[in-house]
C-alpha cells in the first residue's frame, strides 16, 4: 500500500530550490508553512511538471509569481523576451525545475529513497496554465522579495 510522503522527504526539495534560485538568479527565498494543495493547480503564468519515479512516485509541479519568473528569466537569458510563453522562456524554466528536482534526488537518496526524474513538461496558455492531479498534494511555499514560488508535490512512496 502506498504511503504518504513525510515532512523530511518534502524538505529534500527545499534546500535545492533555495540554493538553485540563489545561484542562478540571486533570489533569496525562505520556506513558508507547508500547506495542503488541492488536486487542481492553476496559475496565470506557467507551470512546470516533473515526474518522479522509483521509491517515491508522482509529480512535482512548480509555479512562479510573474515577477519571480521575470527575474529568473532575465538572469538566465540576459534580456527578457516580450512574451513569457516564448519557447526560450519555457525551455529555460523547464531546466530550472529540472535542476531543482534533480538536485533533490541526491537528498532523497540520503534518506534511503532511490528516485529518478522525467524530463520537464511546461504548461502555458492564453488564459494561464492548469493541471489536475488525481489526489490532493502538499505545497511547499517559498517566499522571496520578488514574489512566491510554489513547489506542489503530488507524491507517494511505493
Amino acid at each position, binding site marked *: 500500500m502506498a504511503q504518504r510522503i513525510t515532512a523530511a522527504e518534502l524538505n529534500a526539495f527545499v534546500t535545492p530550490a533555495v540554493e*538553485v534560485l540563489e545561484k542562478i538568479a540571486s533570489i533569496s527565498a525562505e520556506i513558508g508553512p507547508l500547506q495542503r494543495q488541492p488536486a487542481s493547480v492553476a496559475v496565470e503564468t506557467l507551470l512546470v511538471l516533473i515526474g518522479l519515479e522509483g521509491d517515491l512516485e508522482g509529480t512535482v509541479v512548480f509555479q512562479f509569481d510573474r515577477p519571480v519568473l521575470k527575474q529568473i528569466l532575465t538572469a538566465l537569458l540576459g534580456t527578457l523576451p516580450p512574451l513569457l510563453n516564448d519557447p526560450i522562456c519555457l*525551455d529555460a524554466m523547464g531546466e530550472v525545475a*529540472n535542476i531543482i528536482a*534533480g*538536485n533533490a534526488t541526491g537528498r532523497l537518496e540520503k534518506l534511503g529513497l*532511490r528516485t*529518478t526524474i522525467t524530463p520537464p513538461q511546461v504548461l502555458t496558455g492564453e488564459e494561464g496554465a492548469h493541471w489536475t492531479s488525481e489526489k490532493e498534494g502538499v505545497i511547499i511555499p517559498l517566499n522571496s522579495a520578488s514574489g512566491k514560488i510554489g513547489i506542489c508535490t503530488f507524491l507517494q512512496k511505493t
Partner: protein
Amino acid sequence: MGDKKRILVVDDSSFLRNSLKKILEGHGYEVVGMAENGLEAVTKYKALKPDLVTLDIIMPQTNGLQALQMLRAIDPNVSAVMVSSMSTKESVTDCVKAGAKSYILKPFDEGKVVEVMRKVLS
C-alpha cells in the same frame, strides 16, 4: 584554428546547450555540433567524430546513459562528460561504470566546466 578541441554538446534544453556552447567557445573549444537526445547524439558523433561529448542524462527517448553505452560500442575510447541535475551517488556511479570520464552537476559554473574539459582533454 585546426588545433582546437572539438566538442559535441548534448542536452534536451536549448537554453543549456547554448549556455555550454558559449562557455566552451569562450575558452577556445570548438562546438562542432549539438544534439537534443541520445539517438541524435549517436548519429552526430559518428558524423562529426568530436574529441569530447557532453551528455545530459535526463532526456526524452534515449537518455544520456543509454547514449553513452551506444557511443562506447562505436568508440570504446569515447571521451564523455555527463552534465546532469541528478545528484545521486548512484547516478554518478552508473555513469562512471558506463565509461564517463567525468560528471558535472547542474547548475554549473564556468570555472567547473573549463576545469573538467581541461582535465579530460589533457
